[in-house]
């Protein structure tokens, strides 16, 4: 909480990312330690976490006062809402796939790892394209 306050106050803006990471770790560890079944609220948690991050960084941007921002703010708010909704939908799909009665094997684990690496690689390729 203190880290989030430091981040929002603009003293350590990078602290916002760390706060989101720590909240995510705390959530995952709590589920693993208890050995709870699949949490159906996970998509909502994911959406909420993304919303906190987006709104936090947006509030940092708004620290620089500027006029003529009304329309831009509306578009930004709609974009954030869209992202949050997409997170919810994607999270629900992941949970749906995870709840399918499939037998776990090395093959499925490798396929999952490959999918994870593929997702990260896609993002990296896009980032490199923008940088180039």
């Amino acid at each position, binding site marked *: 909480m203190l880290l989030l306050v430091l981040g929002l106050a603009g003293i350590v803006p990078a602290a916002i990312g760390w706060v989101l990471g720590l909240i995510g770790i705390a959530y995952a560890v709590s589920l693993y330690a208890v050995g709870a079944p699949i949490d159906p609220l996970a998509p909502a948690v994911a959406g909420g976490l*993304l919303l906190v991050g987006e709104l936090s960084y947006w509030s940092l941007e708004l620290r620089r006062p500027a006029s003529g921002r009304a329309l831009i703010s509306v578009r930004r708010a709609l974009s954030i809402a869209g992202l949050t909704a997409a997170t919810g939908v994607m999270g629900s799909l992941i949970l749906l796939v995870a709840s399918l009665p499939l037998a776990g094997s090395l093959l499925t684990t490798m396929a999952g790892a490959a999918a994870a690496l593929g*997702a990260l690689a896609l993002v990296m390729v896009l980032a490199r394209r923008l940088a180039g």
Partner: protein
Amino acid sequence: LWIGGAGLLAALLLGRPEPAVLAAGFLIAATAGLLLAGRPRLEVEVAMDRDHVLEGDEVTVTTSLHAGTPIPQVLIEVALPPTLRPPGGIACRAATLRRGERHEIPIAFKCERWGGHVLGEIDLQCRDRLGFFVSSEKVKVRLPLRVYPRPEQLVELVPAAETQVLAGNEVSRQKGDGIEFADLRPFLPGDRVRRVNWRVSARRGILHVNELHPERNTDVIVFLDTFVELRKAGPSEATSLDLCVRAAAALVTHYLARRDRVGLVGFGGTLRWLRPAMGKMQLYRLIEALLDTEVAFSYAWKGIDALPRRTLPPKSLVIALSPLVDERSVPALLDLSGRGYDLAIIEIPAEAFAGPGTSETDRLAYRLWTMERDALRDGYRAHGVAVATWDGGRPVQAVLEEVLTFRRYARHLHA
């Protein structure tokens, strides 16, 4: 991205889907941000509507933007000197540009203090739709702006004790060709017939002629004490130099309007002067010189001997604008008076910039200091020099009236 990566890794290690769900949101956001982002291409032109304004006027800087790519958010901020303020306090504007769109963004600001400025930088910041990527650029421009002091209306000026030889608006004490009646005297060979006062001549039995006062101009030197600048706490308060320059601008404008020759002496760490002259060109020269007035710190001891002789012509009226604080300007003014210059002092009172302290000792010191300052003013008055104080709270004309009253009173005493 690292949160997304860590989430996926945690999902694999823990064998639970929830970390992957958390990671999905951040990966979706990163992918969307990267897909929507692009290098912004923007052409910028900057123009200002005026480059000469009066204090208190508004100036508009218009930034013309031509977007080569769509830019969801662009922030434009003009780097302004502290004396130029945007009316709402915000000098930053935001806009959205489509590809190929031309957009003009006017930013108005108020000129709160006289002076010369150069607007040299426009800060541009482009963001993508999600605000993930920021592209900043500082556009160098060179927009000079001269802010002139707002002129005050003066009805009556302080007349010089003695006039010069050129024609002007001041009635001379000498006798000669003019309009104002001065005296009567018996007719002498060579007198013009049209000067004969027939009524008096008939009554006295011999011819009498009228003597007249000619209208002449005067030499006026505005003496600006720039050794020190007194200021109150707070950025918007006028300093003693601000008040000096405002009063000086009003005086030079009105003296030049009545065909007097006006000069300027900036007596301070840096000596600056303008020889007396008349006309519109001189007005521009004087105002430009006033705009460049600043306090230059110096320990060097200076007297009026340091000034070129032609800067202070004989029989000129010297109007000194000074807070009478610096130990170099106080004796210099007395020196001027001792050398026979017709001197009047408009004092910017230092008391307006300093208050008594909170402790008993501070208050006692303040009282002693104010008594010292009263004694200083009385010293000038004892030398026949008019001293009037002006703290900016009333018109300059009221101060000139004080000077006029003192000079009238002093003349009666002298008579």
